């Protein structure tokens, strides 16, 4: 068999892996986005616990962010992958189901990424909250806003504005972390490249292509976050 050229290999022809790689890149974006959103929810609650909780709640929140930022992400993914199946198996056996119940790799991945990035996002949100002018919160309270209304109208929009740069960094982390999900067998970009490399014996070509696709995603998302930042800051006067 003759050697395929690089572009035939990663192209969209009959022997090309182009579509498979693009689909896998879509999967990478999907799992990273879901994980990031889970992390935003977790991060919001943890940040809330840090700024508003009593001593016990606060120390739990501090412990969470310290631990999750101090241990390797791969360990957390293993915990969710193996531990999740074990937990589901235990719950399943209560209802009479037998044997091994696998958690879908996508769910494991999104949850693991969410729990990890939640720790980072909590710090981002906490930092952004501290920049919000105290006077605004007092003003909101003085016009009789309740907690939820104040959160929705006053705190959330402003925190989000100041959090965008930090969230951008966290998103980059999440995107790169999503490559680790490949160990659970989810066919995302790295896994697909691994498969393609194995079946064509052209590992360098495929991992290089994966790297280029990752760079492309990073580059586009950096641009989008920059746009979002300028957009959100349009009402703020800056000394320049």
């Amino acid at each position: 068999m003759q050697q395929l050229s690089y572009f035939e290999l990663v192209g969209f022809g009959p022997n090309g892996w182009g579509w498979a790689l693009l689909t896998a890149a879509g999967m990478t974006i999907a799992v990273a986005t879901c994980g990031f959103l889970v992390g935003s929810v977790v991060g919001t609650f943890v940040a809330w616990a840090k700024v508003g909780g009593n001593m016990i709640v606060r120390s739990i929140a501090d412990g969470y962010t310290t631990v999750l930022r101090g241990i390797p992400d791969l360990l957390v993914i293993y915990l969710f992958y193996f531990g999740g199946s074990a937990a589901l198996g235990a719950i399943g056996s209560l209802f009479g189901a037998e044997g091994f119940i696998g958690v879908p790799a996508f769910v494991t991945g999104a949850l693991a990424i969410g729990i990890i990035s939640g720790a980072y996002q909590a710090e981002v949100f906490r930092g952004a909250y501290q920049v919000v002018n105290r006077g605004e919160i007092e003003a909101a309270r003085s016009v009789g806003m309740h907690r939820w209304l104040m959160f929705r109208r006053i705190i959330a929009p402003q925190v989000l504005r100041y959090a965008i740069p930090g969230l951008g960094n966290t998103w980059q982390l999440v995107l790169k972390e999503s490559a680790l999900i490949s160990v659970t067998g989810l066919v995302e970009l790295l896994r697909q490249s691994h498969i393609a490399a194995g079946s064509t014996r052209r590992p360098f070509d495929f991992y290089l292509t994966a790297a280029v696709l990752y760079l492309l995603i990073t580059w586009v998302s950096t641009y989008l976050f920059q746009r979002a930042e300028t957009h959100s800051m349009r009402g703020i006067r800056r000394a320049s």
Partner: protein
Amino acid sequence: MDFTFMKDTFFSLMSGVPLTLNLAFTSVAFGAVFAMILALMRMSGVRVLDAIAQAYVFVFRGTPLLVQIFLIYYGLGQFRPTLQELGLWSFFREPYWCAVLALTLNTAAYASEIIRGGLQSVPHQQVEAARACGMSGFLLFRRIIFPIAVRQALPAYGSEIILMVKATSLASIITMMEVTGIAAKLISQTFRAVEVFIVAGLIYLIINFIITRIIMAIEWWLSPHLRRPPAVEPRLEAAHV
């Protein structure tokens, strides 16, 4: 929770600690040298060198470390005959060296930005004062710029070292049996993910805690000018008379 199991797990995981530390410190050491070169390239003012360093940082910070590891460990296998001819194959055949290489290249990209930030934060007055005393070139760099830059960059460099300790866990994917590698093996043998996770996590936390303390101690040592002068010791001789 089964404490005897956790104790056994702790001892088997501890056997991976030397490799974890070895990977982390080898790559941080090589990475620091390389990062210094990159930072100097960025600040050299030569446009070509600056562009090369910038592209390097962009590529290595924009792609996942695992992709870089695979590219080196599996990817370079595609060029095996060429590498064999050059006599480099024995290097790229070893997962240890591939992991060290990938970690080094990766940390160099991040660290070069930290070092550049440190170098740029050196106040101009200090450099001018040094020039006024007649220092220039390497002497100026060694005595004035470098110490001030290190002091500035140390906290950020500390977190980079912690990140590297965490990153060594990826070496387990290319068969290195460091802490995470052993943990994964234990989990798949015993299916007791939670216990193994707790013990392995604890080991990493202890390592990172110790490193943070060491960095803090170095920071303290490097900034005597920020400390309060020691209280004057009361003269004790008189009491002994």
